[in-house]
């Protein structure tokens, strides 16, 4: 079983690859873990829900709409932290 930290590191790497490869409109400006996804305009307004769908597909974590808010989706790091938190919550 992987620890939460290892899982988070893997998720961050994979999510960054997805965001840079599939969602970003400008590959000349790489998106990093702490890049502001909203201000850069690199991801359009549908992007957040594509990320949610990708996370569901990749990790099996279904993010409740109540958590799909600005604070949790500003950066890739924050998205990963959210998924990590949701994974560790008892069901």
């Amino acid at each position, binding site marked *: 079983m992987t620890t939460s930290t290892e899982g988070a590191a893997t998720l961050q790497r994979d999510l960054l690859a997805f965001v840079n490869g599939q969602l970003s*409109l400008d590959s000349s400006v790489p998106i990093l873990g702490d890049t502001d996804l909203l201000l850069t305009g690199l991801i359009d307004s549908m992007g*957040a829900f594509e990320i949610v769908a990708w996370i569901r597909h990749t990790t099996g974590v279904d993010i409740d*709409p*109540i958590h*799909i808010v*600005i604070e949790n989706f500003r950066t890739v790091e924050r998205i990963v932290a959210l998924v990590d938190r949701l994974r560790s919550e008892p069901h």
Partner: protein
Amino acid sequence: MGAYPKMSVDGRPSIMTTTRQQTLATLVARATALAPDAVALVGLGSQVTWQAVERHTAALASRLLSSGVRPGDRVAVARLKGHESFEAVHAILRAGATVVPIDPLAPPSIGRAVLADAGVRAVIGDARTVRALDPWSAVAHPLAAVVVTDQLPGCAVLDWQTVVGDESREDLPAVDPGDIAYIIYTSGSTGRPKGIVHTHRSAMAYAERAVAEYGLSTTDRLAGMSPLHVDMSTLELYAAPLACATVVIMSEFHLQFPASLTSRSAECGVTVWYTVPFVLRGVVEHGALDRRALPTLRAVLYGGEQYAGASLRQLMRLLPQVSVVNVYGPAEVNACTHHHITDPSVVGDHVPIGKPWDGADVRVVDERGEAVPPGMSGELWVSTPTVMDRYWGLDDLTRQRLRSRADRPSWYATGDIVVQDVDGRLWFEGRRDHQVKVRGARLELEAIERVLTDAPDVVHAVAASAGSHGDASHIVAAVVLRDGATPDTPKLRRWCADRLQVVAVPQRILYLSTMPVMGSGKVDRATVRALLRDSMVESEVQS
């Protein structure tokens, strides 16, 4: 349609009876006289009373004038939403100047073209947007002032905090109802930005009608949801202060995150939403309304595009206390027809755009401008005191769209194809030209095709709007490349993203070996668009 609401505050005369000769420039001062300590704006972090808005806007207007801005000059607002953007607009109006909003999230090339076309004399913005726009090099003449609301080291800018805290005052000029209040830009089909010019008279007429139509009052907390460069912002900017209502500012990002929008609306006791169907559909699907009541919300106004009946019915079941209004009106007239809905069970798959509001007159006409009978399709012409003055610097286009007839001085030819039913209600059917609405944004397919055709290796391009459930949610395109060129969709999308708003960037691109043409040799757009719809549906099913 109801009478003007009674809005007497502290025994003063009703607001509506005092506005006949008023301009937008007097709105803040009047609201301050009526309700100095009432909250004017709930910003993203702080609240501001009318008294404070009055002080800030008087100081900023004074500084614009002392810096060399003259009445009639254009001043850009280039900032993400906040209480500062509202105050910047009203300071410009109080200085007798003309507001030119810039989309802070569009590629800088678009904003720079607007700055140049309007010939702005000053800019008020945030550091990020101002840095990207580089307004100093965008216009041919020196700028009188650039005010930034945060830090922009190394540039000759004025600091917002210092400016609005300054006690010195200039004499603010008298503003005439015929003076130009603001210019709202749309993309235009030729690639040149198209500025829609509104006077204080036309904007005030809109604000007065909107206050009456929606019963806005001092107890309302209107969600300020519209980006400033979109005409829907006139409700929060002008109708709200006319009614002394509070504006709860929503950031651009609240529109992208439905749960953030519902959460802030609940926390701040919002009573009215005015937005586009794209946002409402997001609220239905992701707004967590099954677990979050919005007991204070009394009205949802939507416009800008058609809203599919199924999602609207769901919205009304989630928010049973809310009355809904479908608002219709291009930016050239702000708004002109309305359809009020209180019962979801009467909502069909399509919703009419309704009947003209007080003071507006409509005609449905054929190609020769002659009225067609009910049940027949025709172009919608509107005559209303809320109509624009002209397109900025585009006299031919102004003459094409503002038609004089003996019975009325001017009719605005909307380009929208409608049908009037026997009850007098209007139903939207489509466009005469290649304009589409996607997520509420008004886009010209020809402008998108021009950008695509300018890209390296592209010979022909046809763009179309696409989406599921009958709502356009994105742009798709078909292109023909020069012989031997290899398709590179990410590269082509990047090319577009540098030159178009994000919403106009094609999500999917179909590569054709030749473009179907008609007998005349012109590209057969209708066939290509049908092909696009079919192929995109297939590829969505396959993926």
